């Protein structure tokens, strides 16, 4: 009888360890996957920017320094490594783009070009996708961090080689408002 109880207790503990370990690993994979999603969108954004600059260049001869700021911010963002550095570089790129779009308000030919409108839709969508991918990444990473810190799962965290995932922080409140891309004052379609 005593042996039986001991066996049941040991079996229950082993089962629990397996379940907790698997839950942590699956969350860890979700975090990695969510980060890949962000990466895909960032790459897309980096690819779109030279295109945008080339299209806009013809219309905006006088704003050379703004365009150069966008290009150099883009190049820094491309070479950024790790969550914190990427977040910072991408934030700066968003700001540079925001300035470019703000300036473009004063070029009417620019706003009416269908080529530019198409690029605008693409960039709006890419900005949104980055935002939503970041949202998903932060949600999943928070879940993962909470799970591995909570007792008793924290006992298994070492076994699963779990360490807290870095969140994508947005430091600056003004920047949170910037990513609304709008090349024209009046919305197309309305």
């Amino acid at each position, binding site marked *: 009888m005593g042996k039986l109880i001991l066996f049941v207790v040991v079996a229950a503990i082993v089962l629990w360890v397996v379940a907790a370990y698997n839950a942590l690993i699956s969350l860890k994979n979700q975090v990695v996957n969510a980060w890949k999603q962000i990466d895909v969108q960032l790459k897309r954004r980096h690819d779109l920017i030279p295109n945008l600059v080339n299209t806009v260049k013809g219309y905006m001869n006088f704003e050379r320094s703004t365009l150069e700021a966008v290009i150099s911010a883009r190049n820094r963002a491309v070479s950024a490594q790790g969550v914190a550095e990427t977040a910072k570089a991408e934030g700066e790129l968003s700001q540079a783009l925001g300035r470019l779009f703000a300036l473009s308000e004063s070029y009417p030919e620019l706003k009416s070009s269908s080529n530019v409108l198409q690029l605008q*839709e693409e960039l709006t969508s890419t900005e949104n996708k980055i935002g939503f991918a970041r949202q998903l990444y932060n949600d*999943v990473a928070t879940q993962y961090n909470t799970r591995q810190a909570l007792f008793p799962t924290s006992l298994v965290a070492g076994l699963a080689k779990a360490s807290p995932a870095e969140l994508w922080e947005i430091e600056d409140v003004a920047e949170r408002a910037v990513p609304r891309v709008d090349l024209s004052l009046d919305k197309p379609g309305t």
Partner: protein
Amino acid sequence: MSEPNLFAQQETNKRKSAWLVAGFLLFFAWIGFGGDLAFYLYTRKLPSERYHHVFPFIGLIACAIAARAARSAWKHGAKRVLDAAGAQELINPATPELKRLDNVVEEMAIAAGLPKPKIWIVPDPDPNAFATGHDPLTAHLAVTEGLLKVLDRDELQAVVAHEMSHIRNYDIRLMTLLAAMVGAVALLSEMLGRFMRGGGGLGGKGRGGGGGKGKGNPAAAIVLVLWIITLILAPIVSRLLTMGVSRKREYLADASGAQLNRNPLALASALEKIAAATAATKCIAKGAGHMCIVDPAERKLADREGFVGNLLASHPPIRLRLARLRGMGYAAAKQTGTAS
């Protein structure tokens, strides 16, 4: 903290889908074998040279038909709904409008952490949208041409977010199965009703002959009465079931959709625009109305509350949905206001 809720919701929907299939099969089995039983009880005491119903072939046929119908609803239910609506798959978005839709759907798929569903366009000027499919991997999202014309980008995004949360919750599986099965039940009871009315004259005569002996046969009468009552009630009950199931899930999809695009007010203004177009969405068949974001029928009941409105509407009153969304929007604004 939405994860456990979401998981519970997915499990509920999967379980209810399984129960629905079981209930559907049981219903057909009862219609079939119940008919056999009644027939058997009536013919049991007839003289031996008359026909005796011993082999329950009606039940076996009914079960076979039900199994086929359930299997095809499970496998092809989504395709059937899309075909009935005349939807065209969007493969190469050519116009800026379609490109925008394509982008918005991808954005919301990213927000939900799901693969991008297939996009379909329904050629109808009335704004509406629905999602269907078996699970998030094989989901379809359909919008009408009218929707693309009426809504701006944020509103379109909100509508897509609403549909995306139906997909993520597995609402689509339950709703698609319901659509197929309500149709099958209605068809069956109509067919049998017509058959019985048509065969009534003949059956009456035949039964009149055996009537003398059948008089002392209350068991057969009870079975027959129960059988007919189920047949009459089944289409009504199944329709009410659909509406109840759908109504509850609309509030939930409104709320979790707003969690995806973080903009409850955009969905509120989209719903307002959709509801303002009072014409019916003709392309969407009656049996699929519960799948749409707003009831596609002419919206007489949409604003009515109380018992009748609750019982007969597949969607909650627009006014209440708007109030809840605006409440969420207000709470969000207050939160960010105090944070910054």
